[in-house]
């Protein structure tokens, strides 16, 4: 049982609608996994199932526990930020720290206070007096001081300005993450998490369409700037996506097994690694059509 999360045939229906359609995946320890998908693709549902917040069908094991029946044990080692700004309005900074320190055996009060000292949050301040960014800072201070084995972040920075967003991920990486911890993040802002992820999972219509480590992705996907005269040759290799930049065609290829080889692609033109965002757009083409 080395996997932090292992799913087999994980399925969730909301009435007639299938939110998650029998997915299999496995997340090893010490990774930062981005679960990326468009709205309504099933990423939040998957995370909620893993956190024992909703019933589901299929097999799912988180840190060796079944989230349906062993949630209380599971929550000793798991923490999550499920959405921005969900702290209750009446909560004071001081009380929040006291409460989490009181109920969480793995909470390090000094660490939370150290982090809070670097913000504008005062101990007597209530959540209702805070800006959205400050609420997230408080939440992050509480969560980062918990020595959890798995941290789940579902759209943690939605609606925050760029300063808060950058700071959020920087803190996460510098002050929280280590090889014993695993972080799963869902977000729309792919560009911002791209550099901190070790693994990527694309989810679409309740199915996982791509799951790979960042190294694998770097090896597998190639973007080629194709000059005019080689367009037909390039098209014959079945690019995943094509767009035009400054009059030049930029094509995305899957150079994995069964796809075009690197030598073939290099012959077409200048090659480079695609950004996750471009890969995402290519993979999700036609989602809203």
């Amino acid at each position: 049982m080395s996997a932090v999360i292992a799913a087999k045939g994980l399925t969730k229906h909301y009435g007639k609608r299938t939110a998650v359609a029998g997915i299999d995946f496995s997340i090893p320890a010490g990774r930062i996994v981005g679960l990326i998908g468009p709205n309504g693709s099933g990423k939040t549902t998957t995370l909620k199932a893993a956190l024992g917040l909703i019933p589901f069908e299929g097999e799912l094991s988180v840190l060796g526990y079944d989230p349906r029946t062993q949630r209380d044990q599971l929550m000793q080692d798991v923490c999550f930020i499920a959405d921005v700004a969900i702290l209750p309005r009446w909560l004071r900074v001081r009380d929040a720290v006291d409460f989490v320190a009181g109920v969480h055996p793995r909470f390090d009060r000094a660490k939370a206070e150290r982090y809070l000292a670097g913000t504008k949050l005062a101990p007597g301040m209530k959540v209702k007096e805070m800006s959205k960014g400050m609420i997230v800072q408080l939440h992050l201070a509480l969560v980062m001081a918990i020595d959890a084995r798995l941290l789940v972040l579902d759209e943690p920075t939605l609606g925050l300005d760029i300063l808060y967003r950058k700071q959020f991920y920087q803190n996460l990486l510098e002050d929280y993450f280590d090889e014993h911890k695993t972080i799963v993040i869902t977000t729309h802002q792919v560009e911002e998490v791209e550099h901190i992820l070790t693994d990527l999972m694309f989810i679409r219509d309740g199915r996982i369409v791509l799951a790979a480590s960042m190294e694998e992705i770097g090896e597998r996907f190639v973007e080629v700037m194709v000059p005019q005269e080689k367009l037909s040759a390039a098209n014959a290799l079945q690019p995943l996506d094509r767009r035009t930049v400054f009059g030049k065609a930029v094509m995305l290829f899957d150079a994995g097994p069964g796809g075009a080889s690197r030598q073939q692609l290099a012959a077409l033109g200048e090659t480079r690694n695609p950004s996750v965002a471009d890969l995402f757009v290519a993979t999700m083409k036609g989602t809203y059509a």
Partner: protein
Amino acid sequence: MNTIASGHTHASTMKWLLKREFWENKGSMFWAPIVVAALLVLLIGGAIVYGVTMHGAPAYVSINGHTVSHGALSALPVDTRTMVANMAGGMVLAAAAPLFIMLAFSVFFYCLGALYEERRDRSILFWKSLPVSDGQTVLSKAVTAMLVAPVITIVLATLASFVLLFVIGTALSLHGINVFSAVLASPDLLLTPLRLAAVLPVYVVWALPTVGWLMLVSGWAKSKPFLWAVGVPVVVNVVMRSINAGLETMTGQSLLLAHYVSDLVARILGGVVPGIWFTFPGHQPTNLQSTAAHGFDVGSLVTQSYLSLAGLDAWVGALLGVGMLVAAVRLRRWRDEG
């Protein structure tokens, strides 16, 4: 339960959960009763002090046919003196009546919001990210409703009454009537707060069905928990009554159940009112009224309250209340938010 539970026992988690409920509801459970208690002291005490100062203390008071003149309370026969002390004890309760009425309202609305507000503002997702079980959470809310809030009220009511007694006693003694020695020597008066506390278990038993029902609705309703909580019992009552009325005109028979429905509605919605048990069929106190002429007899209030637990109905209701709380735990466990 777990090896890492060192220093984080269930008891300490419960302590923090109760604190959390108190933080959230400080306004309705603490500040509001304090303001009311202060007003009571000011208004009642003020009126009496004003009366005594402006018009002087009465030269004598007639108690039960005994004429008591200045400073001569000790000249009364013992049983009359006891009665005076009882009256003083009763005053402690009577003066605090508004506080207990307030308690009923604040507990009612507290339960109604207990599992609803956290879903509405989605803060449930934060609470559920911590290692606190749904059972512990619901229990902490039920304990807050049935023990913490009433204890705060009892303490405030006692404080207010004693301040009041002190103010009046001082005003009277300035006019040469010393009531302190008699009143303070009365064990009845000093026992009143303890007796109020002694009624607390009875309150819990009768409040359980209401607390259970309100928290069940609170955990279930997607919106407007008040309408559901009050509407369902009232509609059931009206429907049962009309079915019964129809049956009576058609067949001349009446449904046995229909007779109980109104009573059931009262118990499921009114259980959080302190002393409500005296209004339920079969539990009307017999000698509480007869002693009323001698002031409110707090001692017999305790006895009579415990007598109300002799019937099976109290325990059936309490059991139903516990069942509804268990259902509320299940609801909180699986309710999907957003």
